[in-house]
């Protein structure tokens, strides 16, 4: 019977330890992100995304959904995309291109830090994701013309 307890102990302790290491990163990160939200950093990131939208061939209005998806994830990004499309701020081509970009690359801050916590090379991870999403969206934008 003792060996069953040993396996359970190894599994539970190992799992708790992994979560603990991730918590050490996620807690300060979430506080920083909340401060960033308060300082309207999202607007600034959207401003930064504007050249990106030109390059992708999407409307200027797509910068905000792009920034939201990049920072907070696909579900939030999709929410803003649907909202913008309803308000008529987003044409069909922009909608498809922004969705394509975000499907490949979203929640980059949180995901990158969490994957770094378990030992991944964060800089490489982020670079590969961004470049792949950019290339794919660029190709699609030519094809959609």
């Amino acid at each position, binding site marked *: 019977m003792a060996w069953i307890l040993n*396996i359970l102990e190894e*599994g539970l302790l190992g*799992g708790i330890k992994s*979560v603990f290491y991730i918590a050490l990163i996620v807690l300060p990160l979430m506080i920083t992100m*909340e401060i960033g939200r308060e300082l309207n950093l999202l607007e600034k990131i959207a401003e930064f995304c504007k050249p990106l939208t030109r390059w992708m061939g999407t409307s200027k209005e797509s910068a905000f959904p792009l920034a939201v998806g990049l920072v907070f994830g696909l579900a939030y990004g999709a929410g803003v995309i649907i909202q913008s499309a309803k308000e008529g701020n987003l044409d069909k081509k922009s909608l498809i291109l922004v969705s394509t970009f975000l*499907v490949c690359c979203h929640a980059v801050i949180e995901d990158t830090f969490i*994957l770094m916590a378990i030992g991944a090379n964060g800089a*490489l991870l982020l670079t590969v994701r961004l470049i792949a999403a950019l290339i794919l969206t660029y190709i699609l934008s030519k094809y959609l013309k």
Partner: protein
Amino acid sequence: MVTIETVKRGAKNGINTVLELGKVIIPVYLFITILKYTVILELISKWFQPLMKIFGLPGEAAVVLVLGNLLNLYAGIGAIASLTLTAKQITIIAVMLSFSHSLPVETAVSKKVGVSVLAVVSTRIGLAAVSGIILNLVI
């Protein structure tokens, strides 16, 4: 304005995320640890070895990709933590997972936006496979 309330809200978000993570990572870690003591993980490892070799990964890493894609990124992370992988292998599988994860849930999200499900799923799996192959060769 940044006040103590801002920090409190951030901490609350952080605690919620950690709880969400824990609910998935701890059971997955335990599950794979138990599998390690059975013949099952060895069999999975043997079956998937030829496929996973393309990405420079051991056969048992197939469990990470399956859990990450069917459940979510956190399940994949729990599985990575429970296996013994090198730094290079962790980076490769992290990139693959970041392109392709939580397929059932996230595909539902893209469907809501109005993008083709088949296109989304094949693009994501394709990106994961191509990035895995390339990273194995260059790092």
